[in-house]
């Protein structure tokens, strides 16, 4: 454990793989050029899902890097999204050259649940079919189940992706896995930052990754409380936190800071109430010591759900008056556990690049203008009632 408390943590690296690019810079370039990563899937694969549009990462096979430390048989797309984003943030922060002890580096992630892939069980099913085409359990127990890959279970444990990144980068410190929605990624960011601020880690990677969008995921999304107007997306987004003094000593620029965080859970039926969303934003702002007038931009959750989005906008208006509201999901989709982290990475790019979106919330193509952005408030929520707010500011 380090000596005493090192003080506030700063962000020294970011990583993002999304439908708009295989790095944070590529995504940012595409986004500011007004491009959208959303595509319409061909019929009939999505017929009847109400979700014919998705924001998938381009050429996912190119993300699969057979490098050191990752066991590829149990690495789904979610693993590669996580590993890539972690590695990008790690490299930007120049951690390889920092000489930190592996046990003093933390890793926190919000991860979407990984679904069972029917094709993993197909061999077992075929080997166990009886004469009438149904599973013959005697056959199944005798030989069928042995057709399933021994590591099949591990593929579905979302924490394994985090362990793969730990093995790749040699991280042995403080950690947690939160699951599975926007609030999970937000919590991971907060915990990563706290781990550094409280001296449990000298540096910590924190972020989130979504699961691969299979047709079954789209079918299931219809039942998951997501609106038919929502567009699901794939992404991995991570940030490196370290103490401000540590970053200064190493000569690594402090890109931004998280200065406020709050969350709540709505226990009544229906979407979170305006009052709940407002209370959470208020609490997060209180922690920053700033007033509502000092917020330059709100990145709303804005996932296309009519009533939920209306309530969020009402809460923003009541608390923050005329602060501009923008949403990234119109270009990048709803990346579930990664979504707040995606917005946090974009915030870092806005804060450091002096660019701010000026398009209306819900507009497919983003338009940006030069602006001195000081403070961005990010909202997230889950279909199960969790509400979360992060406040991001420029690095000290």
């Amino acid at each position, binding site marked *: 454990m380090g000596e005493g408390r090192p003080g506030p943590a700063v962000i020294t690296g970011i990583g993002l793989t999304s439908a708009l690019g295989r790095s944070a810079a590529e995504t940012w370039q595409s986004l500011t050029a007004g491009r959208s990563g959303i595509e319409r899937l061909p019929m009939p694969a999505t017929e009847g899902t109400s979700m014919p549009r998705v924001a998938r990462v381009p050429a996912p096979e190119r993300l699969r890097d057979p490098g050191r430390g990752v066991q590829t048989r149990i690495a789904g797309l979610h693993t590669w999204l996580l590993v890539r984003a972690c590695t990008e943030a790690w490299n930007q922060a120049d951690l390889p050259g920092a000489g930190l002890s*592996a046990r003093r580096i933390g890793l926190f992630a919000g*991860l979407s649940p990984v679904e069972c892939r029917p094709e993993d069980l197909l061999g077992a099913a075929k080997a166990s079919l009886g004469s009438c085409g149904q599973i013959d359990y005697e056959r199944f127990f005798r030989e069928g189940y042995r057709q399933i890959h021994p590591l099949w279970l591990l593929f579905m444990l979302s924490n394994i992706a985090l362990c793969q990144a730990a093995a790749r980068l040699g991280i042995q410190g*403080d950690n947690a896995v939160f699951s599975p929605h926007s609030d999970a990624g937000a919590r991971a960011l907060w915990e990563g930052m*706290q781990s550094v601020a409280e001296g449990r880690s000298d540096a910590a990677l924190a972020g989130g990754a979504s699961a691969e969008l299979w047709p079954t995921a789209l079918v299931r999304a219809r*039942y998951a409380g997501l609106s038919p107007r929502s567009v699901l997306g794939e992404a991995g987004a991570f940030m490196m936190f370290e103490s401000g003094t540590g970053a200064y000593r190493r000569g690594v620029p402090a890109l931004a800071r998280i200065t406020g965080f709050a969350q709540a859970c709505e226990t009544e039926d229906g979407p979170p109430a305006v009052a709940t969303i407002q209370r959470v934003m208020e609490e997060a702002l209180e922690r920053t010591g700033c007033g509502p007038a000092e917020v330059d931009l709100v990145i709303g959750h804005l996932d296309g759900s009519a009533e939920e989005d209306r309530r969020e906008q009402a809460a923003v208006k009541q608390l923050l008056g005329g602060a501009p509201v923008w949403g990234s999901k119109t270009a990048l989709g709803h990346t579930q556990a990664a979504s707040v982290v995606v917005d946090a990475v974009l915030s870092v790019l806005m804060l450091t690049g002096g660019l701010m979106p000026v398009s209306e919330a819900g507009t497919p193509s983003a338009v940006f203008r030069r602006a001195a952005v000081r403070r961005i408030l990010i909202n997230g929520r889950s279909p199960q009632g969790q509400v979360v707010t992060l406040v991001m500011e420029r690095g000290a």
Partner: protein
Amino acid sequence: MDRGDSRRRVVVTGYGVITPLGADTETTFARTSRGESGVGPITAFDAAGLPCAVAGEVPDDWLGTSQPSPLRHLEPMVSRGVRLAWQAAQQAARQAHLERVSCRHRIGFFLGTFGENQAWAQIQSLHRMMRAGAAKSLLDARDYDCMHFFRRKPDVAAALMARICDCQGPVHAFGSACAAGAQAVGEAYRAIQAGKADLMMAGGCEAPITLVGFLGFLLLRALVERYENPQRASRPFDRKRNGFVLSEGAGILILEAREHALARGARVLGEVLGYGTSLDAFRITDVPAHGQGAALAMRAALEDAGLSPGEVDYINAHGTATVQNDLAETRAIKAVFGHMARQIPVSSHKSMLGHTVAAAGPIEMILTLEGMRQGLILPTINLSSPDPACDLWYVPNEAIQRAHSRALTNSFGFGGHNACLCIGLPREEE
């Protein structure tokens, strides 16, 4: 033990369990203190022909017949795991008089769970859909239970529990496999320390005894395959150990800021003194032979508690009964405790309860706390053929009367997640 910092102290004011040995803490503790086993032949599905046909099951009639009222209209979303957690949470809430706490947005719920596995029939439906190549065919399939989606998602379980218990503060699900429940408790402790909540319900629940869930563990070769009878199947630290017994259950604790508990006159049952986590950063399917990751987690918990190894009176081992885990954990304990390692009682509750996966950490923490309160250390049963490489004091076969006030409880997850909680009895002033 004064940490010399400004963090709030976190005490335990309620807990509850449901396990294969009992529908409540009192029964489970009484039966484990007699060294009974909760393992039996599998009844949930026909396991004849599988290399392992034993598990620790909770009888259905212990789960109660009615749903908690906030869930009645959500019945299809309620998994067996949530029903187990509800039984444990009710005990904890009663013990802590939770109904008397009015500021509900300062109460959170952290839950470790994997969620319900798919039924085989569901997988068959998915096959048909894949063959047809269209999502519509799945939607049209009348035998596909789309509500399973909710029973599968861990956050639904956490949110449902928060709704039942009216917890309006931070609510999260944890997904770090067998360490998830311990991480949920550890993170709840940190949330209170940091002032994010005044009171947290935290724990884990798991109901993995289904054909598909069971197969996953079986294929990993993690389950016991050679045993004389079900009760003798779970043999942590024994030379004949050859895998763990999969079980179901739940454990929920109520953690509270000490000043909050004292101000409302709540009875303090124990204190969370420290929490540590680590990652093995090793091959995903192996445990580092010397348990370096486990040792890191134990050291971190001790450091967080401000304790030296010599101040620990008891270690509740993860002790799964796999060949690798028990040896690595033994070596890790030796690395942390040095020459004192053989003098500290170490025992595995899994010898009696089997491995309840994400629920194991909270259940074992509760039994450890109950043991401290009663001055009784629970045994490691089925330890009849000592393994020369596992040479600590494992409290073989019979519980021992012994006053003890500080303990570590270990939880290690697949992939290399390690969590360790340091707990203690209330100090005299309470």
